[in-house]
């Protein structure tokens, strides 16, 4: 978010409000904008940034009229859901919630019920907060984002969208339109756990998303581990995943996992937590998240 140095006048000049009906039209508006243009899906970050003066768009583009961005559908056995689908819609989609409980964990930690009624996974990803609750779960799930821009459409893994706090790798005119979650292998489970001082209404001090698959003998054949709020953006931690793969996710594996997670964390001290605290809790959460994911893979709840 570039802070506008020159305050004078911008409040008084009117902010354009557009409601495109296609992703191409939305992209064209972004590409054609002179000053800052912002996508409005849930607005739960954008409106706060506009109120505080942290974001001064000359154009706001409401994408909720675009079908692709607001629908949830099955595609080649997997799920495709729109970047502007409110978290509560996913939470209330029983089939989706049963298939991707970890992604739902993430959705359920975004703000309050009121905020989840508006906030979208697309907004959460593109706001690029290192502490975004849906992101580690989506990364662990191997979610692919569909991005539309002036050069057409491209698919990129979710972990490649955020560049740093408030910054994305999207180019001028590009927007994330939907996410694809591949077909679920049998004996798979995912989970997201975050740490906050309060039980609700908080920003993750540390977050961990884990997605794993077991073979018929209960040995972990596939795992992805992602950590939130311990670096400038959500991390993929292959060493942590490696600690699980080939094991029955037993005590020894969990201990290795925790160590790998803590080792991968490179947090800062800030108002929400200390460096030392985050490093330790990253390991603690990784262990706890893996146990939940494991139980879900085994169908134990």
């Amino acid at each position, binding site marked *: 978010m570039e802070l506008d140095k020159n305050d004078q006048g911008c*409040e*008084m*000049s*009117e*902010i*354009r*409000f557009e409601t495109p009906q296609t992703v191409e039209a939305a992209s064209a508006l972004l590409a054609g904008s002179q000053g800052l243009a912002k996508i*409005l899906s*849930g*607005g*739960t970050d954008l*409106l*706060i940034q*506009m*109120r505080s003066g942290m974001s001064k768009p000359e154009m*706001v583009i*409401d994408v909720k009229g675009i079908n692709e961005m607001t629908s949830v559908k099955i595609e080649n056995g997997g799920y495709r859901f729109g970047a502007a689908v*409110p978290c*509560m819609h996913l939470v209330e989609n029983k089939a989706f919630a049963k298939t991707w409980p970890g992604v739902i964990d993430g959705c359920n930690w975004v*703000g*309050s*019920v*009121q*905020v989840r*009624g*508006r906030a979208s996974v697309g907004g959460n990803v593109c706001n690029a907060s290192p502490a975004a609750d849906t992101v580690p779960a989506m990364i662990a799930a191997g979610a692919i984002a569909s991005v539309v821009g002036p050069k057409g459409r491209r698919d990129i893994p979710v972990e490649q969208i955020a560049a740093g706090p408030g910054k994305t790798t999207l180019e001028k005119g590009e927007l994330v339109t939907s996410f694809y979650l591949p077909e679920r292998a049998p004996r798979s489970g995912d989970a997201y756990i975050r740490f906050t001082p309060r*039980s*609700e*209404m908080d920003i993750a001090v540390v977050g961990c998303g884990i997605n794993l698959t077991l073979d018929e003998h209960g040995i972990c054949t596939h795992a992805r581990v992602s950590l939130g709020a311990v670096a400038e953006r959500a991390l993929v931690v292959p060493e942590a995943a490696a600690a699980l793969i080939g094991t029955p996710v037993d005590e020894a594996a969990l201990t290795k996992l925790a160590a790998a997670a803590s080792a991968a964390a490179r947090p800062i001290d800030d108002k929400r937590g200390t460096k030392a605290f985050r490093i330790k809790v990253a390991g603690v959460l990784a262990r706890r998240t893996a146990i939940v994911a494991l139980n879900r893979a085994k169908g134990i709840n």
Partner: protein
Amino acid sequence: MSKHHVSTVINGDPVEFLCETQQTLLNVLRDDLHMTGTKEGCGTGDCGACSVMVDGRLVCSCLVLGVEANGKSIQTIEGMADGQQLHVLQRKFLEHAALQCGICTPGFLIAARALLERNPDPTEEQVRFWLAGNLCRCTGYNKIIEAVLAAAREMRGA
């Protein structure tokens, strides 16, 4: 500056208003439509005092643009009672002394009604988590939770 013309339905009545892009639904309700039952406690979606329903979805009106209300149906605290007939939740809040200063009460009532519409038989824990987005500094929440559970019982006819 030119404003957006918005046509919406509030508490069942058609309403039209003009607003600037950056005006929130909360500002429009309070400043322009003089519906001050919806309160502003923070303006950042952290306190729930401005809770309203937009097309059946519980939201903070401070995090919705007025222009987004176009073509939508909005419910506020002013529409909760049926004439002189208080909603069960309103009655239970009074009977259980679930308000002290009362500034958070409209938001709690709107949020609680949204819960009971989805889950007519919530546990205490479910009520506490659903209402976590509504801050109350006076009551410690006891009597609010009791009132919501009591309303749920009565509405279930239990």
